[in-house]
């Protein structure tokens, strides 16, 4: 079959209009930025504090929700609220929603299996089943914010966030939506925690983490904090952000001429790592200096070595996906 083929041209970047996050180092963006500028004590697991998930403004809407949904919904709400001015007048059916997660709500999934094993196949709780599907977070977010545009949940263990940004670029460029609320959420469930030491190599260079990061996106001419592009080749940028390169043999070594940083020690490693790296990069660019753990600082100034207004995310998967983030 053919497709309509109406728009054969390169995609423009999208504007970041708002951001929200629930992370092991906080929920308020200034708090997260401050913590990113401080060293962090090594820990095997970096979990989100339950205190961050008890938001009275959404307690009724989230009364059946578990940690997975709460992390996503609160981060999405914050990203949407921060973009309120930039989204004024946008019809609710013109707002798209994309939620990506590698492991999904596996904690609730195992709870449903507890029900099957303890009570029998026909007596497990239906709410555990309905909350065990990947789309549960998107459903709650759409309900809380009354978003009636396209709603998509995706799963990927490597590049889910980059692929979601790419689709958001398509949706905004093709006129499918006027705004896209896009985010990633990962939960550290009990089963994963117990099995982690046997799943990971000896002495992994990172802690496992959890949390949610959401961005409100608009077309490139919308008034935003930064621009995001999943199609750019992203050469000659001031800040290169990597995951922990020592664990990933396929990653390129940090280039000598530019700042190279990682946020994994602060957020922990998740299947949606790029979302958290994006958050760290956005906060770094807003602060005007690299936050997180600096892997490399150029000693010899060069045209490319100053910390300018662009950050590249090198995603550590075989497809070498990358995101280009530019201020303003």
């Amino acid at each position, binding site marked *: 079959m053919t*497709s309509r*083929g109406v728009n*054969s041209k390169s995609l423009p970047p999208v504007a970041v209009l708002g951001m929200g996050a629930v992370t092991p180092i906080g929920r308020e963006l200034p708090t997260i930025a401050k913590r990113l500028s401080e060293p962090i004590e090594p820990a095997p697991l970096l979990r989100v504090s339950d205190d961050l998930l008890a938001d009275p403004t959404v307690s009724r809407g989230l009364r059946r929700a578990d940690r997975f949904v709460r992390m996503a919904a609160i981060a999405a709400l914050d990203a949407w609220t921060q973009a309120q001015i930039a989204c004024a007048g946008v019809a609710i059916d013109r707002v798209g929603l994309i939620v990506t997660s590698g492991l999904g709500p596996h904690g609730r999934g195992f709870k449903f299996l507890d029900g099957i094993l303890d009570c029998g196949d026909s007596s497990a709780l239906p709410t555990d089943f309905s909350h065990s599907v990947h*789309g549960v977070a998107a459903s709650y977010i759409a309900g809380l914010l009354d978003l009636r545009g*396209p709603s*998509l949940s995706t799963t990927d263990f490597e590049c889910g966030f980059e692929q979601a940004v790419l689709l958001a670029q398509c949706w905004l460029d093709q006129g499918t939506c006027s705004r896209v609320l896009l985010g990633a959420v990962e939960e550290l469930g009990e*089963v994963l925690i117990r*099995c982690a030491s046997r799943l990971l190599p000896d002495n992994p260079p990172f802690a496992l983490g959890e949390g949610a990061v959401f961005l409100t996106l608009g077309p490139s001419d919308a008034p935003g904090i930064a621009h995001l592009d999943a199609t750019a080749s992203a050469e000659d940028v001031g800040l290169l952000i990597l995951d922990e390169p020592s664990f990933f043999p396929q990653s390129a070594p940090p280039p000598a001429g530019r700042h190279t940083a990682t946020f994994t020690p602060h957020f922990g490693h998740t299947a949606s790592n790029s979302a958290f790296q994006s958050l760290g990069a956005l906060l770094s660019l807003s602060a005007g200096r690299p936050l997180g753990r600096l892997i490399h600082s150029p000693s010899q100034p060069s045209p490319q070595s100053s910390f300018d207004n662009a950050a590249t995310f090198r995603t550590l998967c075989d497809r070498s996906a990358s995101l280009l983030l530019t201020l303003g």
Partner: protein
Amino acid sequence: MLAVSQALAEAGIEGFSAETRVGVAAGTTVASQLNNIPFYEAYRRIDNPPLDAIHDYLHANLAQAVGDLLHVAGPRMTIVNACSSGTDAIGVAASWIDADLCDVAIAGGGDELNRVALAGFWSLGVYSSEPCAPFDRDRAGLNLGEGAGIVVLESDAHARRRGRKNAFQVAGFGTACDAHHLTAPHPDGRGLHAAISAALAQGQIGPAEVAFINAHGTATADNDRAEGKVLARIFGPDVRFLSTKGYTGHTLGAAGGLEAAFTVLGLREGWLPASMGFENPADDIPVAPIRGRTAIAGEYAMSTSLAFGGNNSAVLIRRIA
């Protein structure tokens, strides 16, 4: 991979050159979840259960697996929008091609029967132990099925380069969220109405030009009532539609892919089978599906999907040759 191979053969594609950008958009539900009961039983019983199930799961992302097996480079996305996943995958793939992100896209969905899903739908009270009866007065719930439905999309430019004149086109796609309930559709089907309207608008046609609709038609009380209302409202009382779930069961993430393929087949063959399971019109549904083998003529047909989470999607297929 059997469905992918079949679809590629149908498209006349034996392999891809290194320059060809090939996207993979795959919908699923069961394959995205770590619902492995033997593993979890062992986990509850012993300290160090075998982790094979987790390792397999971590290497079984559907779109990644298909792309890796085909050794292709291009965008990949595994869509987990519950029962609309397959249809949404086709919409994503069409969007990629329209944006010139790939030359060819493999799209659709696959799912397997699973004890967990069976228990889940049973727990929700929407599973029927009798053969399902979509849109029928006495419908009592869905039956589960399994399978895979895949379509191959390509850009006009790629088709021209290989001298191919394709007979069908994704002429429109629409998707919209009810923002109403986690497991039930909006009673008036507002999201489905918006999705169908968007697909028609993208295809630049009116409802009268749609020869038939392959409806979602799960045979649950809520789905069929909401969907029937929308079909009547948009397409009128004489709308020609069927549900194929009487033949396949509800294949969840595969349903949209399978039913898109059935929609193409209906247009190609010029006839539709009876909407299996339907006997008696329902008082709460203002339209009725076709009862027997029915000849159809027309250029356009549509496949609709509704899903957990309030997702609604519609893909408009056009016969162009």
